[in-house]
């Protein structure tokens, strides 16, 4: 007997959405922490540090996130770690998101006028104090719209964790489709749930951007 796509099947998708949200939060938090280090390295005075950050960002942005995921998943497997897909996906997405967030935040740090650095240096701030009290607070403000925008990318990117067998929203969709053979209903429902997660974030990012531009025009 073939099940048809009804309320119970939709509940299965909703339960799996919890994993999508969890993986998104882990990726964003971890990627943010590592990305902050990358942004600092990318804008550092030390040449080697800068060079390493550039190489990291450039390579990650030229690599499909799926390949990062496979390398982490199979690579850790080689070392005898039998790691669950959630852990492999978390590591891969943290490494991946860090490069993008690092690059976004580099732009925000560089957008702060040089005079701000110079003025705080004239006030005898150390390099770290200049960063901590003068540059980063201003950079943080302008980083908000692109960072929220990137959150949408994070949520969407978690869908690839289904490929290594993590039962998040997309994989649950495949299971339900295999049981019901109603691909249009099932994957439309999956898409709808992603949309409900992502669209408010997109609108928020747009609103933040408008607000910031209004300030600049005034």
């Amino acid at each position, binding site marked *: 007997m073939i099940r048809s796509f009804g309320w119970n099947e939709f509940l299965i998708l909703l339960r799996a959405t919890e994993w999508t949200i969890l993986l998104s939060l882990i990726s964003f938090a971890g990627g943010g922490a590592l990305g902050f280090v990358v942004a600092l390295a990318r804008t550092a005075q030390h040449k080697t540090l800068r060079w390493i950050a550039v190489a990291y960002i450039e390579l990650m942005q030229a690599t499909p996130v799926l390949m990062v995921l496979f390398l982490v998943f199979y690579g850790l497997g080689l070392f005898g770690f039998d790691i669950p897909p959630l852990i492999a996906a978390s590591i891969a997405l943290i490494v991946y998101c860090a490069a993008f967030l690092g690059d976004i935040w580099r732009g925000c740090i560089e957008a702060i006028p040089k005079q701000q650095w110079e003025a705080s240096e004239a006030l005898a701030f150390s390099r770290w104090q200049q960063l901590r009290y003068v540059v980063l607070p201003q950079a943080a403000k302008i980083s908000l719209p692109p960072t929220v925008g990137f959150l*949408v990318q994070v949520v969407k990117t978690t869908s690839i964790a289904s490929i290594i067998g993590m039962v998040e929203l997309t994989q649950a969709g495949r299971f339900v489709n295999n049981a019901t053979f109603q691909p249009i209903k099932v994957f439309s429902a999956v898409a709808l749930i992603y949309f409900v997660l992502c669209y408010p974030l997109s609108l928020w990012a747009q609103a933040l951007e408008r607000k910031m531009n209004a300030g600049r025009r005034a």
Partner: protein
Amino acid sequence: MTHEFDFDAVLASFDRLLQGALLTVELSAAAIVLGLAVGVLGAFAKTSGGVTVRALVSAYVEIIRNTPFLVQLYLIFFGLPALGVKLGANEAALLAMTVNLGAYATEILRAGVEAIPKTQIEAGTALGLSPLQIFRYVILVPALETVYPALTSQFTLIMLASSVVGTISANELSSMASLIDSETFRSFETYLVVTPIYIALAFMFRGVFLLVSRAIFRRRRRLQGVFGFGGAR
């Protein structure tokens, strides 16, 4: 660590990986041409269409931009046959890539078109250009030039995103990789070989887009040179 690396089994299939890479390039190139066409139409409809047309285009753009490419691919690959449309994995991949890229291209080009000052369009009218000539010479080409960096990085992104079509067993690079993986059981080695191929493709794409921009935006660059702004980036 007890693993002994063995690349021989993977490298023995290197020609199949190159064939896969070639198909990835072909799929991406086709998706870029078709997606750009969708984007031009979409941007035109969104900036000068009626209320209904604008709402429809907006819905298309927002739905695509707020759902994962993988789900769009599944909806097309599993969904269309259920509607009686027969299509193979490669066709499904191309369709999904075009639909996805078309939405992003629409949004990017719309921003470029809206950045054209109204006075320039009026100047075009004053010179007696037809609406089509105005769209082509006054709106489209300058808009393309403004958004060229955003547009071409989206082109590279769709090539990289195409790696997920391995899940529906197309014949492109990632599908070849998973085939070789299942034949040799050398998963890590396989992806250690395939990843640099993708990286090389991404840098190749960027190089080609740079050369193309030099060829098609020559006139503007000369003007910039006159005013001392330096060459286009």
